[in-house]
């Protein structure tokens, strides 16, 4: 008797899509590994340089000019006289700067470039695709042909031309330019994905119902349709971050990206490759850190896709 009453008053709380997806994500070991590594590397990059400064007393761009013995590249865990030392766990570079601090600072910039450019691509790509898809007809045609034209340009060359044309005097200016250049070419696929989603969503009855209640087109696009495309958008954004980071590394490697004294994993690797035969740790540490991060982000992206789109899962 009593249980009946309880069953009647307490309705079953349904699980939301997001909670379901989260549970599926946690079941995927590679994705969990990716998530943990990404969080650790992000935290280390954000806090690491400050911690090193407090405990060890040097910044990433500190060159030990007070002691000429310290200038020069030392292997990991090695002091100036070849003895074991905790001071530089990743060794030092040619000028005697601490590698660990530089890799962590490089991580800051690499992640920053990846995330900001992805946000730019989200902002432009989602609105562009959603508007094209919802309005349809001639506008859609014109907008998507523009995307097609931009797609057909070799975008690395576009970025290189952009960067060298507006070459900035300060390293920070160069960094901003890099954001603009990467962001402006990376929204194309996002626009296509969102447009495709909106095309299939806009004929659903809830859009008609919203229109029948007098909701404006702008509100329908951004309040009703865009949230419905969130799943694929999140997945694609997660996969865009490593892609952009790789492009940034590539550009920095070629000398178009991040300029000294700022460092990114790409520019550290570029410095390291010159001495690969004698000082291999100069390439290995930034290279491995970057590879690990990219792996993790890709695992996480794949995991998210499987979690958010159960129909696509293969058993």
């Amino acid at each position, binding site marked *: 008797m009593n249980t009946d009453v309880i069953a009647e*008053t307490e*309705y079953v*709380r*349904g699980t*939301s899509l997001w909670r379901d997806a989260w549970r599926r994500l946690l079941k995927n070991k590679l994705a969990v590994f990716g998530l943990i590594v990404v969080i650790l590397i992000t935290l280390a990059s954000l806090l690491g340089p400050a911690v090193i400064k407090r405990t060890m007393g040097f910044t990433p761009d500190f060159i030990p000019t007070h002691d000429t013995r310290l200038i020069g590249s030392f292997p990991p865990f090695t002091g100036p006289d070849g003895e074991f030392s905790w001071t530089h766990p990743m060794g030092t570079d040619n000028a005697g700067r601490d590698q660990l601090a530089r890799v962590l600072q490089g991580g800051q910039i690499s992640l920053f470039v990846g995330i900001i450019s992805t946000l730019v691509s989200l902002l432009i790509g989602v609105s562009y695709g959603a508007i094209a898809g919802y309005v349809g*007809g001639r506008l859609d045609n014109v907008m998507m042909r523009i995307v097609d034209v931009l797609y057909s340009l070799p975008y690395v060359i576009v970025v290189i031309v952009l960067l060298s044309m507006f070459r900035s005097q300060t390293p920070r200016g160069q960094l901003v330019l890099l954001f603009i250049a990467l962001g402006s070419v990376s929204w194309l696929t996002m626009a296509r994905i969102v447009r495709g989603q909106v095309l299939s969503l806009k004929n*659903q*009855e*809830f859009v*008609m*119902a*919203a*229109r*029948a*209640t*007098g*909701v*404006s087109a702008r509100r329908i696009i951004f*309040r*009703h349709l865009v*949230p*419905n495309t*969130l799943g694929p958008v999140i997945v694609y954004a997660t996969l865009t971050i490593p892609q952009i980071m790789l492009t940034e590394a590539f550009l920095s490697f070629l000398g178009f990206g991040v300029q000294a004294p700022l460092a990114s994993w790409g520019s550290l690797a570029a410095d390291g490759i010159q001495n690969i035969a004698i000082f291999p740790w100069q390439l290995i540490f930034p290279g491995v850190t970057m590879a690990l991060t990219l792996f993790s982000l890709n695992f996480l992206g794949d995991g998210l896709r499987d979690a958010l789109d159960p129909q696509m899962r293969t058993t």
Partner: protein
Amino acid sequence: MSETDGNLLEVKDLRTYFETEDGIVKAVDGISFQLKRGETLGIVGESGSGKSVTNLSIIRLVPDPPGKIVSGEVIFNGQDLLLLSNTAIRKIRGRRIAMIFQDPMTSLNPYMKISRQLMEMTQLHLGHTRAQAHAHAVKMLETVGIPDARARADSYPHEFSGGMRQRVMIAMALSCEPELLIADEPTTALDVTIQAQILELIKTLKRETGTSVILITHDLGVVAGMTDHVIVMYAGKIFEQAKTAELFSTPGNPYTKGLLRSVPDPTAEQGKLYQIPGLPPDVAHLKPGCPFAPRCDKVAEICHREFPPFVQLNADHYSLCHFAREVYAESGGGRVS
């Protein structure tokens, strides 16, 4: 208030055509009717007869392209809706004319809380603040009989059953106290017990608020219990128009007679159910005569040659048929001319 004749809505010679690769489809072809304040109008017809398009045309929601309202007037409160700007018609949608759709499973946004979707209405049209809108949303959910409305308002649509969702749709449609409610097959997607509840709810709320209702359906039983007037549509045309009681007792059109015969009779012992032979015509390629001619049991040579006249049988009974008067007399009507 200029509408001295008490007409809330007056549709005159409405024509909505769709351009398809197969030619022009005349989905709605010269429809006229009136709806008085507080009355309920039923529109019945088979699938593809133009019922839904008629109503989408009234609030100008026909997908364009391919659809186009070619001609006609839709006078709502003395104002031709077809001449209004897009902004002006948006202020009427939801505020003064609201719609309930057929499939409650898909007509709520799956990513928005029920309360948000209800609040959107009143924030938009009545200028409610968030708090006012939320309170109003809960009140509306209580009105349509959702138990524990305050707690359930913040659930998502997938946590509701079909009947519950249709109640939410009704709450949404009525939350701005519209003058006209268009219900497009509101019970088709629901099972029979829920159907009865939903219809009863619409009836009660209509009585309480004095809203006029247009009820689109293909269920004659629903029409009989709910409406004051009925329009029977076929191939984009009005075939018969009458007061509900009269249409059922003395139909003046062979198509209506066929429809009425098709309603299963629970008292009948056994036997096959009657069905009108043939299929609804392809409205893209209509022949010059009566569109119902190939399926009609009263068909004559003239039916294939000439389009039938719209015959007035009495004060408010019209029928589109060459033999309207005969059919009407056969069913026992027409003692007065």
